[in-house]
């Protein structure tokens, strides 16, 4: 009896919090189809007008494209580097190994504002102009810990005796990696890539310091927050991107679960 009551209370709490977590998101959906430009109640009329206007809003679409380019590039780089460090971490033993792995996961704990200004100093000292490249480099650095952890946990699940068997059968190590190890960790690599993609696509704290004349979507969104009448268009795009991100996350999750 007591147990039942506790269960009901916990369930109520869970669903209450779920409601609270989804309320603002639902609100954004609502305002993206609200005919009034001001984000307040009461809702006047439902319209898809903002979505229509979105496709004429060049700067908005360009910022989304910039984010896409940066996320694609940085997630690929982070996946390749993460795979390399995973293999070094679990299939080799060498001096300075823990230093390398430590450096690779360090961005997880360095405050983004610190990393952002440090990279800003580096690029200005080397007289490299800020661009999508500089944002992409920063995103690769912060995505590396995620790709490393995802790929390494998959690689750790395989006994190296499989590789030894391949090598006993005459394969050299590069062939063994290509034909045995990479296929085994491939699902984790896809999952890592998609995770790195979402990390980059949504990233704002670093991009604000490092984007030059081409803003990524979060940076552009931030610059437009002051102009109230543009907000519904931004929200409309944000809603579309949110749906896109969720699809990517679900695909990543499916790949990660393909373990057993």
């Amino acid at each position, binding site marked *: 009896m007591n147990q039942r009551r506790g269960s009901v209370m916990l369930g109520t709490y869970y669903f209450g919090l779920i409601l609270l977590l989804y309320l603002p998101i639902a609100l954004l959906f609502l305002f993206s189809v609200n005919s009034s430009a001001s984000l307040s109640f009461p809702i006047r009329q439902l319209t898809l007008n903002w979505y229509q206007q979105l496709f004429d809003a060049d700067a908005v679409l360009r910022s989304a494209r910039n984010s896409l380019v940066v996320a694609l590039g940085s997630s690929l780089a982070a996946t390749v580097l993460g795979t390399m460090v995973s293999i070094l971490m679990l299939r080799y033993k060498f001096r300075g190994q823990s230093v*390398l792995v430590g450096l690779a996961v360090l961005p997880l704990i360095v405050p983004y504002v610190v990393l952002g200004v440090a990279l800003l100093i580096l690029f200005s*000292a080397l007289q490299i102009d800020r661009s999508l490249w500089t944002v992409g480099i920063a995103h690769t650095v912060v995505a590396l810990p995620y790709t490393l952890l995802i790929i390494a946990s998959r690689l750790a699940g395989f006994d190296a005796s499989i590789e030894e068997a391949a090598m006993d059968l005459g394969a050299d190590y590069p062939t063994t990696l290509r034909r045995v190890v990479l296929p085994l960790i491939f699902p984790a690599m896809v999952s890592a890539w998609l995770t790195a993609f979402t990390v980059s696509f*949504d990233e704002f704290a670093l991009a604000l310091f490092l984007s030059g004349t081409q803003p990524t979507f979060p940076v552009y969104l931030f610059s437009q927050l002051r102009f109230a009448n543009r907000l519904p268009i931004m929200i409309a795009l944000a809603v579309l991107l949110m749906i896109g991100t969720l699809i990517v996350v679900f695909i990543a999750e499916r790949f990660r679960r393909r373990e057993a």
Partner: protein
Amino acid sequence: MTAPTPSPALPFFSRKKGEGDRRSGGGWDRRATFWLIYLPPLFWLIVFLVLPVLFMALFSFRPDMRGNLFQSWTPTFDQYINVASTGSYWRLLGISALTAFAIGLSAVVFAYPLAYFLVFHAGTRTAFYLVLLLIPFWTSYLLRIMAWKILLGTEGVINSFLIYVGLIQDPLPALLYNRTAVILTLIYVWIPFAALPIFAALQRIDPALFEAAADLGARPFHQFVRVTLPMSAPGVLAAFFMVFIPTVGEYVTPLLVGGSRGFLYGNIIQDFFTKAANWPLGSALSMIMLAATLILVLLAARLINWRQLFE
């Protein structure tokens, strides 16, 4: 009920010495592969992680912004002396740490019942409920914060609703642009994330312990206080640090919902690199923040057995 089977040991963490030696030797192909996959990440991390921090450290000893980094200048402690003698920086660092502490604590308190529900009361739907909880975390950060702005603003949802039902005549300005708004927003953002390590810790508890406690006459409350809570303590600590550490350096949320009254330490760093353009002073402030964070992380690393928690 079955006891959870111990996770298989990671094969390479428990490698014996002799085996490891054989592995690292290998033929020329293994050595060639080593350099091929060793040099790119090493280069990357040195150029884009070690070097920037080094440059920042150098910058913090500069007297001013003049000249580029490679021109010689006389190293000076001026920036650090400036920081040390300015009470408001320390006060803001303290406030930021306290704010992050409060946020970490609240997020853990709010997340614990969630994790408890998921592990012990969600039955077969645990996985589904967990995903449901995490989806908001995967939606755009800036967007969720903006949604709070819409909720809390003077013409926002809460105010316009309260005026609509006639509870108030004038909008409550106190809802936005202060530290409370920052704290509320960040707690909201972190709750699902904080539930994860607690969830992991609760799942690891051997159900036989509950049976033993019940057999020995422990009432549900005592069972929770004497068995469940202590057994989940590592997860609680992990959750706290996983929220606390990124929050100390937070500058985006204060920028969006805090206004100048809600600024945190990260915001003065950002200001010195953008508006005020005093990079040497900003670098000194950054170095202090970095040092403080690393000390906290070392503390967390000593308190928590992370590997056991996430195995």
